[in-house]
């Protein structure tokens, strides 16, 4: 039966670590158990699975568990499932699940993202990296120029902000400083030591203008969100958070053929899909696999103008935990670990339910934006507590 609305009704997360030895399917189960306990649902209630990017047999560290692994391991009786990389960024898996429950294809969908990149790097015999050899598809346009890491692609966008709009490293630093400060209040965060502006400015440059502290760190973890149909809320005990709108928009699937990353058209698209406005938003949880990406989301979502992101975050007051627009209250990926997109939606739910503990933002937050992706990939969710 079709349903008018979709809600996040349960959240869960495994431990977040590096070089974990727990099997990645069991890490996924840890997060699922927590989400089921949170929601009051049982596995028998689950009739849908959605994940990003699906199992990647050639690069298991990046995605060691697929939807089909989970369905088979648990003998789940699902009516609908989805897992794939060809959607616009990580939270696309959640937006797609919302569409599925609205269409009546499922009532309760487990959405998950499991990462095992640190473990894989430590144990390449068990979790091999992609075979070295000739590159193809999109990689052929960057790798031959030793632009193999995404940081070198993002850095070129950041450099344009430096040269064209006058963004300074001191301004950009506020993303990482805010992340790291917030992470100290998150018991599950990967990095829980303070970072000063001085340490940031003196740190090693990776690809100018970006330095070591602008980058997230490989992690091993699983994050789960349960998405439920609006007419199934009677079956859950947790405070439901409505997926008020979603957007994913990619205009060219190239890192180097557009002036603006997909965070800009996706940010604009989000507001076309809702009556809410940026001024209604109480907190933003924005993808920061590289710090500059969060700044592009602030601009793309219209919290400031194009090119004004550096000024907007200058000094860090505005985006602090007690500021007017608290950013990445769990520490983002830079502080909490590279959960790869799903952490931003997880934290939005925590904050909107008032369950942030030491890191809970003040007031009575009702609306949050969770955004994931960089370059040609972008997806955003507008989340609301009714």
């Amino acid at each position, binding site marked *: 039966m079709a349903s008018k609305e979709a809600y996040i009704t349960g959240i869960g997360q495994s431990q977040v670590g590096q070089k974990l030895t727990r099997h990645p399917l069991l890490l996924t189960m840890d997060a699922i158990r927590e989400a089921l306990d949170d929601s009051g649902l049982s596995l028998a209630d689950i009739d849908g699975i959605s994940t990003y990017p699906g199992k990647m047999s050639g690069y298991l560290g990046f995605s060691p568990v697929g939807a089909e692994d989970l369905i088979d391991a648990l003998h789940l009786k699902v009516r609908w499932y989805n897992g794939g990389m060809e959607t616009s960024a990580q939270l696309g898996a959640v937006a797609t699940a919302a569409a599925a429950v609205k269409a009546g294809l499922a009532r309760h969908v487990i959405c998950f993202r499991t990462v095992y990149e640190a473990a894989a790097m430590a144990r390449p015999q068990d979790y091999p990296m992609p075979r*070295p*050899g*000739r*590159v*193809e598809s999109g*990689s*052929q*346009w*960057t*790798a*031959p*120029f*030793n*632009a*193999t*890491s995404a*940081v*070198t*692609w993002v*850095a*070129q*966008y*950041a*450099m*344009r902000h430096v*040269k*064209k709009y006058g963004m300074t490293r001191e301004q950009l630093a506020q993303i990482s400083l805010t992340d790291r400060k917030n992470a100290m209040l998150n018991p599950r965060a990967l990095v829980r030591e303070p970072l000063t502006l001085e340490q940031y400015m003196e740190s*090693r*440059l*990776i*690809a*100018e*203008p*970006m330095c070591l502290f602008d980058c997230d760190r490989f992690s091993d973890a699983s994050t789960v969100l349960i998405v439920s149909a609006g007419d199934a809320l009677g079956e859950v005990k947790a405070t439901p958070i409505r997926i008020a709108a979603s957007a994913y928009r990619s205009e060219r699937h*190239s*890192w*180097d*053929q557009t002036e603006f990353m997909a965070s800009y058209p996706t940010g604009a698209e989000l507001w076309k899909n809702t009556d809410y406005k940026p001024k209604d938003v109480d907190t933003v949880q924005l993808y920061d696999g590289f710090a500059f990406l969060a700044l592009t989301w602030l601009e793309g979502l219209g919290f400031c103008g194009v090119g004004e992101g550096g000024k907007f975050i200058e000094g860090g007051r505005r985006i602090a935990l007690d500021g007017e627009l608290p950013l990445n209250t769990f520490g983002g990926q830079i502080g909490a670990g590279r959960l790869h997109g799903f952490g931003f939606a997880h934290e939005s739910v925590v904050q909107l339910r008032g369950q942030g503990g030491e890191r809970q933002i003040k007031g009575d937050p009702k609306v949050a934006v969770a955004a994931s992706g960089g370059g040609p990939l972008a997806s955003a969710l507008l989340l609301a507590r009714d």
Partner: protein
Amino acid sequence: MSSPRPLPRLDPDNRFFWTSGEDGKLRFLQCQDCKTFLHPPRPICFQCLSENVAPSVVPGTGVVDTFTINHQKWNPAMEVPFVIARVAIDGAPGVFLTTNIIDCAVNEVEIGDKVEVSFLQQDDVWLPLFRKVG
């Protein structure tokens, strides 16, 4: 840079591009009907949906659209620092190439610099690198 580079796997779509430097000329795929340039190469024109597409020679010059100075050694043999740039290709409106700017100090590159192609052959591939002109 003399360090080994990951090379593209040649296929029917990209072979003309990666071997174009054999005669010292840079080529991009162009719609022969409406003259739109298509990059990365696809067998159809996004503008007019014509399938009459073929490689065309471009002047081999361009303008630095943006860049970064890479300091990180991504493999032990890599020599750093070096410049990774996005070059807007003269004569092919809307087409950019990620490439390296060579033969100058890394701090001499700026957005807006005029550059010209300089091919580096490795195996059966001619990599279009760029150097500053003027």
